[in-house]
């Protein structure tokens, strides 16, 4: 059943690759323009639950990877769909998916705050967790946590090294 689903997706949507892992994980890589259409397609196929939206900083390729994970409420299909897209790291912009899945709202807010991705059409991209602004969004790989904490809190000398 899942193999047929994959063949149908690859036939319907252009610029899309995918494969199924043995333990019910369907990985799909696509382009960012196709995401809303693809999410709507899955929603109609009863994969109507957005488990999470995540982001990975691929600094070597100079891209940000956005990941949507979809599952189903039906009990007899444990398939997890992992949908991946890559967007530019310098000008990260993406359409919001709130019209399709309402619970994407805090996830997109979090990714905006921690990775600096702008979601076009999001109703409130206000800070969620952090209290101050950072030059580099803190969850990106070029934000050095240790250097930041040394600058902010000063380094504490080891016992005996005070002189």
């Amino acid at each position, binding site marked *: 059943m899942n193999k047929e689903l994959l063949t149908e997706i690859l036939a319907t949507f252009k610029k899309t690759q995918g494969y199924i892992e043995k*333990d*019910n*994980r369907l990985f799909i890589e696509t382009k960012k323009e196709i995401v809303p259409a693809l999410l709507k397609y899955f929603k109609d196929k009863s994969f*109507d*639950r*957005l*488990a*999470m939206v*995540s*982001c*990975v*900083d691929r600094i070597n390729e100079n891209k940000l990877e956005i*990941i949507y*994970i979809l599952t189903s*409420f039906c*009990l007899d299909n*444990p398939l*997890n769909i*992992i949908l991946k897209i890559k967007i530019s790291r310098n000008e990260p912009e993406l359409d919001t998916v709130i019209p399709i*899945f*309402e*619970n994407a*709202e*805090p996830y997109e807010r979090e990714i905006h705050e921690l990775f600096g991705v702008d979601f076009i059409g999001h109703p409130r991209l206000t*800070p*969620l*967790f*952090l*209290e101050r602004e950072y030059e580099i969004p*803190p*969850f990106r790989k070029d934000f050095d*946590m*240790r250097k930041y904490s040394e600058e902010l809190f000063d380094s504490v000398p080891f016992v005996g090294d005070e002189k």
Partner: protein
Amino acid sequence: MRELELYFGPQHLGMVGNFSITLSVEGDKIVNAASNPGYLHRGFEKLMEYRTWSQNFPLVCRINVIEPDSMEMVYAMAVEKLANIEVPERAEFIRSIYLELARIGSHLFGLWAYANMLGFDTVAQWAMYHRDIILDLFEELTGARVYHIYINPGGVRRDFPKGFKEKIVKTLHSIGGCVPDYNNTFFENRLFYERAHRIGAISQEEAIKYGAVGQPLRATGIAHDIRKVEPYAVYDKVEFDVPIRENGDAHSRILIVRDEMIESVHMIFKLLDMMPEGEVWNRTPNPFKWNIPEGECYVRVESSRGELGLYLVSDGGDKPYRAHFRTPSYTHGLVILEKVLRGANISDVGNIMISLYVIAPEIDR
């Protein structure tokens, strides 16, 4: 009537945990609500990128204060999947028993918070006492009461000590013997019914639309449980029911908490009888020289509050490249709570929030 802004939490008597809600109220009625997390944001997911695979265990369990064990489990499962490690059968049984004990402990803590908020102080103290004797079991098994760091990739840290099986049975019997008392004073009490019935109700369509998991979803009549949908550990070898209710309100959610505890106790008895002998840990490489092949995975377990997922990425090094936890309270606290509070009464805010089982450290991470 004039609209006022009211800050509910983090220093508020009705608030459990480091969380706050900004309410717009007209008289007693809530017009708008905005969840305001971040009081406990420690950036664990970033910190994990600086520590080796084994060093991360003390971090992941601190993400959730009241039930750290499912966090350990989901992280261990992800590492095992990426590194292709097998787990001995006895270790899988021990893990399941350990997770079910943790579920009872967590539910008793939740019951303490809920009963305390409603003013049933006696029931709250009973629940706290019973959680404490479960923590005694954990102390004997792992050496720690709250953060156990017991599950390791490839199994568990140590086998059951001598006579531990009998101790579990004895403890669970003494808790189970008090179920009639709990029922008489709390669950079948008219006061609880009047106070919780039709409070914070969500329909089945809304639960699906907002992506609810755990008790809020099962209270609307959908028997969705990861232990059944995608069994891990030994949940496919043992029989158990998934309790559901139809009303979707606070009353149904709390009754499901009780039913799940009873179901867990029965499950532990069955698992103890079926437990095989054998090894409990498959050796893993030296933790300081342990590189895990490149890849990514999404694993999920059923924690006491619903689906808990972890998206873990490895770049072939000795540290995770990225970890992202999908915690059940995240959607409950930031999406459903805001929707349900609209139109509710100020006196029901704590009631709704605790019955949705919102745990603040899990949201902030």
